């Protein structure tokens, strides 16, 4: 196993062995990210492939400041966003009415309530707009102002989508728990 420096140098000169090592080292983590933005594992793999192609072709843009993983992560997320916009016109979306208007009560969860796979599955089923905003805000930690800029939407839209998204998610998790205990 080569050092990360060697791997990056190799990737910059387009060396296949270096690309392979970078891939082996980070593919699992990157697919973990893409899988949160996709509606299926297959789609996540497509996005990750596209992301890695961008990474290899633009590795020179990586200035060496900060971890390469963080840089790759950003590219994956951007690729997922681009993919979302590309796919949008082919898909039916019903984001607007997906959440009921009844009063909803906040609740908390235990670490072991759900498996990773269950959570991924729920996220895959999430309406696309919700999924994007939820990921960007809750997991990636972007501010609504930034999300509004990234997605070219209104800041308030980002906020309202987000509150609907977390509600949608919680309602779904409650339902899963309910079905399980039956």
């Amino acid at each position: 196993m080569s050092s990360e420096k060697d791997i990056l140098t190799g990737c910059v000169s387009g060396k296949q062995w270096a690309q392979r090592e970078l891939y082996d080292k980070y593919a699992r983590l990157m697919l973990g990210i893409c899988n949160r933005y996709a509606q299926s594992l297959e789609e996540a793999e497509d996005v990750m492939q596209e992301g890695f192609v961008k990474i290899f072709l633009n590795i020179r843009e990586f200035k060496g400041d900060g971890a390469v993983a963080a840089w790759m992560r950003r590219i994956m997320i951007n690729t997922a966003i681009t993919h979302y916009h590309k796919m949008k016109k082919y898909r039916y979306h019903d984001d607007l009415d997906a959440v009921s208007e009844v009063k909803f009560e906040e609740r908390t969860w235990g670490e072991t309530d759900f498996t990773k796979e269950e959570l991924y599955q729920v996220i895959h089923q999430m309406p696309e707009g919700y999924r994007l905003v939820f990921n960007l805000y809750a997991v990636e930690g972007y501010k609504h102002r930034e999300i509004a800029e990234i997605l070219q939407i209104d800041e308030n839209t980002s906020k309202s989508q987000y509150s609907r998204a977390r509600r949608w998610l919680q309602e779904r998790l409650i339902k899963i728990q309910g079905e399980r205990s039956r």
Partner: protein
Amino acid sequence: MHEELNIEQLVQSKLGEAEVAPSADTWTHIRKKVRRMQFLKFRPGRFNIWYLGILLISGAGITGELTVEDTGSEEPLYRETRESVIPEAKNVKEAVREPAAAVEKAQEQQERQEHQEGNQTGAGKKLVGSGEILRTDRVDPVEVTDAPDTLKGEEMTLPEPVEIIEEAPIHEDKLPLMGGFTSSVQSGCAPLTVQFRAPHAKASTYRWSFGTGDRSSVPDPLYTFREAGQYTVLLTVAHSDGTPSEYRQLIEVHPAPKADFQIEEGFEGIDNHLTLNLVNYSSEAAAFSWSLLEGDRNECSYWSSEEYQPVIRLKELSRGTEEIRLIVTGESGCRDTLSKELPVEIASSEDRIRFPNAFSPNPTGPGSGMFNPQSRRTDLFHPVLTEVPVSYHLTVYTRRGKMIFETREVYRGWDGYINQERVAGGVYVWMVEGTWEDGAAFSFRGDVTLIWNELW
């Protein structure tokens, strides 16, 4: 241990750094794409040679080619898209594939060798003198000399228009997502009117599709989205040379809330306060703001509410209050306002009890005299109350001073009869005495005209 996590923490802890194993052939796909893209990538050092080659072979084709690129989208253009644009180049390309594959193989072999030597010599060579190995200027020449001689020779003779594709710059924080045309607003409350403007280009036709089923062919349409929703606006520009460009933009129309309510009169509590119940019929609203308006439309300072359906006690209202206003706000910040006049005239505190100056009894016979203060009955002589007194004594006299009706029950009025007999029409005098809940005593007198209406 049972940790209490909110939904954000739950997802973060389970999926924030989660790993998922990719399928076995993923790497092969990536590798193929990267190979191909690297081979097609534009390199400034060789631009002139290729440019010359292209000029020789495809001649005038290049000019059309470049204009297409100017107006094109932000996505990197791949070989596939180009092929459809320049049919002449296709044959050349077919011929190119074989040598290209051979070259890739050669390169791979070389790489493998280098990797084996890598840690001793290969890597060391590139690391000379500094840690800034990733800087572009330093790496570029390496890459050029890197290529085997055979590859160089091949490339020089290739009249490949694809080679001049410049790699799209990658913006780390914000990728260009949509674009082409401009819109005056991207989101807003329904109905949302948007001014679209097509990009400036020598275009022969514009085709707009607003995502609602409506279409337009003018360059700069003004369009109103009536319903809430997310609309992908698509502009197809057919250039004068027949090549189309497509642009997309997302317009988000927020649902507009609608304020609506009814005022119902009612009672509340053991002391039977008269109330105004505000019954909410608003739609698409997330927040409610109620206030009272005076005659000059100023807000009253003494009462306001954020409740969904507030109840106002009549005795809380002070004189001069005329309207109830509701402002609703939707989840996206859109608003709507509705004002309604109060159904009752608000009396000052001295006017907690008032009497009519005329009434018209039921000519068919006497009744119980009991009345519901919610209904304004004209067949009974009774007061209008904003508050129920603790004690109450009402007496009615003829003009000569003979008492003909008396009650200590607040909700009993005079029906115009004495001992089942009608009294004569005309003017009668009344007196009332009592005490309010707050201890204040009251005593009023006045007259009332009794009118028999046989058509009743």
